[in-house]
């Protein structure tokens, strides 16, 4: 089985998949047999088909999911599994998630779709106060582990304030739920199936920029990827870069440019943000001595801060330079200024050089 380059049509995604040194997955998607080249929304669609096939108490619901959803992720589900299992809800996020918690508490697998992550805030109360604490406060009599909330997040080029946000940091502050973000179609399918089958409530953010742009060979069979395991997707020795989701492709480009200047970058995809794989990142930092974190969300209070603090705690004496964070600016996500707001390849490259030459 060969390694494949993932070729994105516009961004020039150059993610090179190398063998994962730390993975303990039983079935890690290297799958023999059929693998087709598909994009992110198709991979997610496949995962949902499989999830509903393998569990007849799984439901998919949300706004406009019946005709396929605004991003086509739920195409064909209603036709195949019927309107009793795949149905539209009215426009009430709080109701959608709360209703999902109820379904999950009664032993079903509820896969709720929030149309854009920007709309998740009315449901924030239900997620934080109910979903995260259900098992805890009922003394394990009830749990809503069957709940998976899927939401497209992140910049899309023209989204403006309310179609581009990255709210992962808010959820990473809540013990009791898991937060997972895939970087590519093959990852998305495996991770989503793991999330759906995980006995804990999970918030699954899908990078909307990659829905059509990211194309990859994805095995057609049922496979799961392990949660809470980060993946080193590029080996290096001078600096460790940590990221997730769509931002990884930007970081990969910066790594390639840095390579031309003789800087060898190690790139890690966190995959699961909560609970995150500290060991993998720590091991990498022990090797390189430098770390840079990048995400689209505003820098202050973003998840990069948690990673930074943990790494400093664990690797203080090994660090050769301060932990760098290249993130979105501390403003609401802008409309016209989006290219200026985003953590672009150049900003990351500058930071890599500054950190290496510290």
């Amino acid at each position: 089985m060969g390694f494949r380059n993932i070729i994105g049509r516009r961004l020039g995604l150059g993610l090179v998949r190398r063998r994962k040194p730390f993975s303990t997955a039983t079935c890690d998607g290297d799958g023999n047999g059929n693998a087709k080249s598909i994009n992110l929304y198709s991979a997610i669609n496949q995962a949902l088909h499989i999830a509903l096939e393998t569990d007849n108490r799984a439901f998919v619901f949300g706004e406009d999911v019946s005709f396929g959803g605004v991003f086509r992720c739920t195409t064909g589900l209603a036709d195949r599994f019927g309107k009793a299992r795949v149905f539209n809800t009215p426009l009430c996020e709080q109701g959608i998630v709360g209703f999902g918690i109820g379904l999950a508490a009664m032993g079903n697998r509820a896969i709720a779709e929030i149309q854009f992550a920007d709309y998740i805030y009315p449901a924030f109360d239900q997620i934080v106060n109910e979903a995260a604490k259900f098992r805890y406060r009922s003394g394990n009599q009830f749990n809503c582990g069957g709940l998976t909330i899927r939401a497209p997040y992140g910049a899309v080029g023209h989204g403006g304030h309310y179609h581009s946000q990255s709210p992962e940091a808010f959820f990473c502050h809540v013990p009791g739920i898991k937060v997972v973000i895939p970087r590519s179609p093959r990852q998305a399918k495996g991770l989503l199936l793991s999330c759906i089958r995980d006995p804990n409530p999970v918030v699954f953010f899908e990078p909307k920029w990659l829905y059509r742009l990211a194309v990859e060979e994805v095995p057609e069979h049922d496979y799961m990827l392990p949660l809470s395991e980060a993946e080193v997707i590029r080996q290096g020795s001078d600096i460790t870069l940590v990221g997730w989701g769509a931002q990884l492709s930007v970081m990969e480009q910066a790594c390639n440019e840095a390579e031309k200047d003789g800087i060898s970058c190690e790139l890690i995809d966190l995959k699961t943000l909560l609970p995150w794989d500290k060991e993998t990142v720590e091991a990498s930092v022990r090797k390189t001595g430098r770390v840079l974190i990048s995400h689209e969300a505003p820098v202050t209070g973003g998840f990069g801060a948690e990673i930074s603090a943990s790494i400093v705690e664990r690797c203080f004496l090994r660090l050769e330079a301060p932990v760098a964070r290249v993130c979105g600016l501390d403003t609401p996500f802008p409309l016209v200024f989006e290219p200026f707001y985003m953590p672009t390849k150049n900003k990351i490259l500058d930071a890599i050089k500054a950190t290496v030459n510290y």
Partner: protein
Amino acid sequence: MNSASCAAKISTQPFSLNPTSPASHDRPLVSPKPTSLFLGSTRKLRLSSSSKLNLHRRSGTVVAVSDVVKQKKSKSTHSLLITKEEGLELYEDMILGRAFEDMCAQMYYRGKMFGFVHLYNGQEAVSTGFIKLLKQQDSVVSTYRDHVHALSKGVPARAVMSELFGKTTGCCRGQGGSMHMFSREHNLLGGFAFIGEGIPVATGAAFTSKYKREVLKEADCDHVTLAFFGDGTCNNGQFFECLNMAALWKLPIVFVVENNLWAIGMSHLRATSDPQIYKKGPAFGMPGIHVDGMDVLKVREVAKEAIGRARRGEGPTLVECETYRFRGHSLADPDELRDPAEKAHYAARDPITALKKYLIENSLASEADLKAIDKKIDEVVEDAVEFADESPVPSQSQLLENVFADPKGFGIGPDGRYRCEDPKFTEGTAHV
């Protein structure tokens, strides 16, 4: 449908809502019954789709616009609903809305504007019918489908077009774009991308007006707030919370539901347990009225009464306007889900065509007058596009402005320069 006499009928009904009185359904005044002639259309849409679900369908016959106009014509000429000036004003406003939205579509496909743009074609009667009755100090709160609300409220077409292009001369300096039109001068409180988020804002604005009048004793402050939102929003918690607050505190607000039957791809009839939205008003203690939103004159009559109620301090009203959007949800929506027969039915009820016919048949205006208005509006819209094209793009320093009240606390660094002008800014961290 003798609307003139119906208008008289409603105004004599005492609309005094006593908040301490018992269950609202005991009060006959509160909900004008659906059979009342005043309500304009009692027509409901008959669906031709054969869905196997147990749909709560509205049944009834479908009446084309020409019948409506004929009915109006049967009244004697001295009880016309509008004067010539008013008629031309309404016509001009609706044509402006339509021409502007069509130009937006053109500009979008040419790449001059970007982002998510939601057009208002077909719903002009609601905007014109309501907003043209307002004063400058009255407030309007809208949704993401807000271009025409902004234009009706008086925001210049140039400012709106520039905002869509993202230029500094836009009404929000290019920060907001299509879904966030604000104007302090015209009291347009936005433009909300998120459904339902504007309704509590409108409720607060209405409270201010009542407070000014009753507590601060500014006796002539009778400002009214209009909140526009769609059918999908009527299933959202914020809507119900605000109906309750507004009725409880008798706020001078009118909740205007633009029921165009579709929330992107979800039919209102399949998403709502009781699709007759106007019935939700009396449940909270305010009148609920259903009106034909494709007929600007009917909307205007209902609006007069509802706004009048609010001005007199009698409290809120819920008005459901049955209307339709001719285009897809947004310019990115291929609009494949709606039944062509349904679209054709409403296209035949185009509000602009209806008003034109009314004006001509009642000799309020001639074809030449109306054509002159068409031409004038075309020029206004073209001028707006040129202006927007030539306007400057905002400078990068604008990105950090207005996050907080004090730009120095964020936008300007210790060396006195804007932080983004600092060459090290490309490293990508902006410190608060």
